[in-house]
């Protein structure tokens, strides 16, 4: 149990560190846009979704209508539906007192650690996942707090390119997992489609890119297993 707690923390640590620029940016950007310290921290404590928070801060500051803000939040968050679907069969037999906290911390980062066949299925693995998930939660809120305190002292961080830290971490999570043609083609499709759609300002770029890439991966793996059967 102690071991699972520690392993969850340690496995998530590099991701907690890589998100420092984003967390600080989230805090300082909100302060610079007229949020109070409480509101800024509450956002990280309750919403706990980096990309949705950053976009919402800009929208709220621009006096965007509430419905537009909520719709945008929904679009950005809709990738979580995929995560829920993908881990459903592993988590669904657990009682609500485990499923609730797991779903609360089911971020991109935690999902990246959810692939083991037995993930979420034993008590040790649940503790591992919650330790990883909540250490990321605590880190995110800590970095937000630093951003709030530093707030107006900091220059405009938006154009410093610190988002590259996210790219570097996700590269580290994705590349070692490419072990067959189907996954390679999934990754290539996701990259190309997301880049094109995002540059065209298509609102659903993330979900559309993910779904088309998953279809390619699935199609290729089906074709391959058919060929194996016919040989």
């Amino acid at each position: 149990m102690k071991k699972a707690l520690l392993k969850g923390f340690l496995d998530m640590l590099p991701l907690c560190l890589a998100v420092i620029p984003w967390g600080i940016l989230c805090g300082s950007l909100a302060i610079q846009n007229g949020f109070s310290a409480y509101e800024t921290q509450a956002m990280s404590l309750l919403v706990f979704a980096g990309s949705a928070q950053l976009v919402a801060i800009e929208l709220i500051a621009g006096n965007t209508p509430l419905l537009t803000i909520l719709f945008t939040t929904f679009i950005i968050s809709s990738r979580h539906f995929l995560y829920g679907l993908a881990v459903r069969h592993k988590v669904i037999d657990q009682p609500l007192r485990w499923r609730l906290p797991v779903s609360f911390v089911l971020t991109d980062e935690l999902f990246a650690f959810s692939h083991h066949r037995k993930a979420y299925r034993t008590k040790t693995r649940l503790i591992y996942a919650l330790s990883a998930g909540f250490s990321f939660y605590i880190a995110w809120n800590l970095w937000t707090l630093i951003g709030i305190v530093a707030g107006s002292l900091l220059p405009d961080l938006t154009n410093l390119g610190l988002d590259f830290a996210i790219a570097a971490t996700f590269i580290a999570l994705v590349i070692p997992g490419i072990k067959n043609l189907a996954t390679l083609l999934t990754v290539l499709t996701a990259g190309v489609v997301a880049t094109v759609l995002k540059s065209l300002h298509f609102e659903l770029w993330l979900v559309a890119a993910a779904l088309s890439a998953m279809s390619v991966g699935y199609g290729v793996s089906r074709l391959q297993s058919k060929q194996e059967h016919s040989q």
Partner: protein
Amino acid sequence: MMTTILLMACITFFTRYLFLHRALPFKVGPKMQQFLSFSAPAVLTAIWVPIVFVNDEGINLDWQNPYLSAAIAAVLVAYKTHNIYYTTVVGMGLFLILN
């Protein structure tokens, strides 16, 4: 403002919890499961690749783009070492030098 934040919190939590809700009457079959097994590489890549290539003006394929050189270095290190620390340190280090 607090109302907006609370409503946003409801939305993100709803998207995370919905399919972990037991009363939803469906089972994810083996084919769907296989389809979903590609969701992590698909979503994570769809997030990081545009960070590298897309800026305010559109798609940037310039070799002088520090995002691109640092990303290539990070991909090579990730491929060789499978180590998340080495990958982020080399990627970020090179990026900060070039930028």
